[in-house]
């Protein structure tokens, strides 16, 4: 078979946004994908069941669905606009403008994911760096409560462990040390071999304090069974690092979220002896973009309500609290809350008017009052996105879609409400 010339594409399968994927297109269809991981390939080939325009679960034309969505949102006293992590920055900005027009709450999946970490990085409390710096300079990398081999499959091969880098010409064999701290021996932990530290669930804060003791030359104390000698050895490795990076996963974030300042204290203790940065393992391709875009507009990264006196932020405006007792209508863009939120919370979506904008039919479409299909970001729709380390990236469409982009859908709704 004659092969078409490949085009270079930035993958939107996860927030690593690999920009070196080769895609062969023939007759506006993806023929072959090279360099992408399994997750990236699944993203390129798209979903089997695409969404269709519906109102009350009956098929309608897209204009009627958009009008119905506008009517629902206009009537609502306390609408919530949620999702956004699978949308381009341009769609996110449109969403923020719609929230402002409606006096609505707006929140993203970062609310119960890496938002807390991204906030501290954006306000300068936690030092961070780019993935290119990691590739060129890092000699010690820690995957803490993170399993990139499962969540961001090309992380280790493209940036953090396997490649040669400017200062790391001997690569992983001699120049890099990979450490994993987790509750189970994940795929990433297996690669870290003897540098895998198995801790009990919720044991991260204690482990962090023990490491700080080790760094300061004190004997670490732990309430759970752990070989103190190993902690001292680890502290010695961290002290010697020339360019260290912690990849913070949700295992770490969830475990210490109630005493999150401990990470700040840990980083500053570490940096008295060494040179460490932290990068949050954001999952969805543009989760971080939402935080940046909302911050630019409001000074807050998520959980915002637009009031007459300007935007306010707080836990009461989080998607979880709003779904429990607040929102009286919800617009979801590029997310499947019925699948990704606790059912005890998402169940309420069945009781309030629900609008879903998504390329695919998902669990939430089954209960949505209005469904509006849109082009898949990064496949049929281009724009910009922010990688997990905060770098702004261009993303281009690879095939021509025949529908509206999510940005256009949001803007059409806005035209009808204002």
């Amino acid at each position, binding site marked *: 078979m004659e092969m078409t010339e490949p085009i270079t594409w930035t993958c939107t399968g996860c927030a690593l946004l690999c920009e070196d994927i080769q895609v062969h297109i023939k007759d506006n269809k993806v023929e072959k994908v090279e360099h992408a*991981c*399994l*997750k990236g*390939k*699944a*993203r390129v*080939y*798209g*979903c*089997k*069941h695409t969404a269709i325009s519906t109102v009350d679960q009956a098929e309608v034309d897209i204009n009627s669905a958009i009008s119905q969505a506008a009517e629902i949102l206009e009537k609502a006293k306390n609408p919530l606009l949620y999702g956004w992590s699978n949308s381009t920055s341009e769609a996110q900005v449109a969403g923020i403008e719609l929230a402002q027009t409606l006096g609505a709450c707006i929140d993203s999946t970062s*609310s*119960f994911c890496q938002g*807390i970490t991204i906030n501290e990085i954006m306000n300068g409390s936690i030092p961070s760096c780019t993935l290119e710096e990691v590739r060129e300079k890092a000699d010690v990398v820690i995957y803490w409560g993170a*399993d990139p*081999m*499962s*969540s961001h*499959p090309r992380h280790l091969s493209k940036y953090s462990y396997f490649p040669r880098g400017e200062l790391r010409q001997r690569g992983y064999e001699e120049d890099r040390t990979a450490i994993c701290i987790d*509750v*189970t*021996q*994940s795929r990433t932990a297996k690669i870290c071999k003897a540098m895998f530290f*198995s801790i*009990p*669930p*919720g044991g991260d804060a204690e482990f962090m304090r023990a490491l700080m003791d080790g760094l300061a030359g004190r004997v670490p104390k732990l309430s759970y069974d752990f070989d103190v000698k190993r902690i001292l050895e680890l502290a010695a490795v961290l002290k010697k690092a020339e360019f260290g990076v912690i990849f913070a996963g*949700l*295992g770490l974030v*969830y*475990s210490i*979220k*109630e005493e999150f300042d401990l990470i700040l204290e840990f980083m500053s203790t570490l940096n008295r002896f060494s040179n460490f940065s932290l990068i949050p393992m954001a*999952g969805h391709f543009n989760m971080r973009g939402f935080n940046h875009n909302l911050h630019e507009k409001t000074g807050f990264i998520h*959980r915002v309500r637009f009031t007459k006196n300007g935007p306010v932020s707080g*836990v009461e405006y*989080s*998607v*979880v*609290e709003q779904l*429990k007792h607040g929102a009286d209508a919800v617009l979801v863009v590029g997310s*499947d809350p*019925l*699948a*990704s*939120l*606790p*059912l*005890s*919370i*998402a*169940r309420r979506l069945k009781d309030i008017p629900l609008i879903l904008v998504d390329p*695919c*039919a*998902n*669990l939430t479409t*089954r*209960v949505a009052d209005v469904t509006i299909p849109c082009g898949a970001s990064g496949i049929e729709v281009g724009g910009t996105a922010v990688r997990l380390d905060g770098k702004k990236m261009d993303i281009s469409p690879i095939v021509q879609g025949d529908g509206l982009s999510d940005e256009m859908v949001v803007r059409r709704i806005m035209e009808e409400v204002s």
Partner: protein
Amino acid sequence: MALDVGKFIKAPEYDIKIITHRDVFQASACEEDRFGDECQEMSALIVLDAAEMKRMGIQDRANVRLTSNWGSVVVRARASPREEQKGMGFMVNSPWVNTLVSDETTDGIPAFKDIEAKITISKNGITGIQELLLL
């Protein structure tokens, strides 16, 4: 006719802490088809320490019911190929495990990685995606 006593004996229940995680194979299968068999097979699954399973009388690939204060689902139990910490079960992020997660939060972040549940052998079939919607 002999009386099937086993029918009236309730299968023992054990406490378990469930931790969620991600898996590239499941994520890809569900991205392609959230309603497909492959997505269900890879999602409606709990991985346990093999010795713990033996202690609880749960065979590899047996159906188990997981029940928390928030919901109940039947999933397949699999033995971990390595030794795991005791009293723990691992489930990949999916609507099945989300059925068990508490709605109580003080900070807007549900306890996805700290789910207290009971596990017991089940004669029922695995909870289907359509059934989850009705819960």
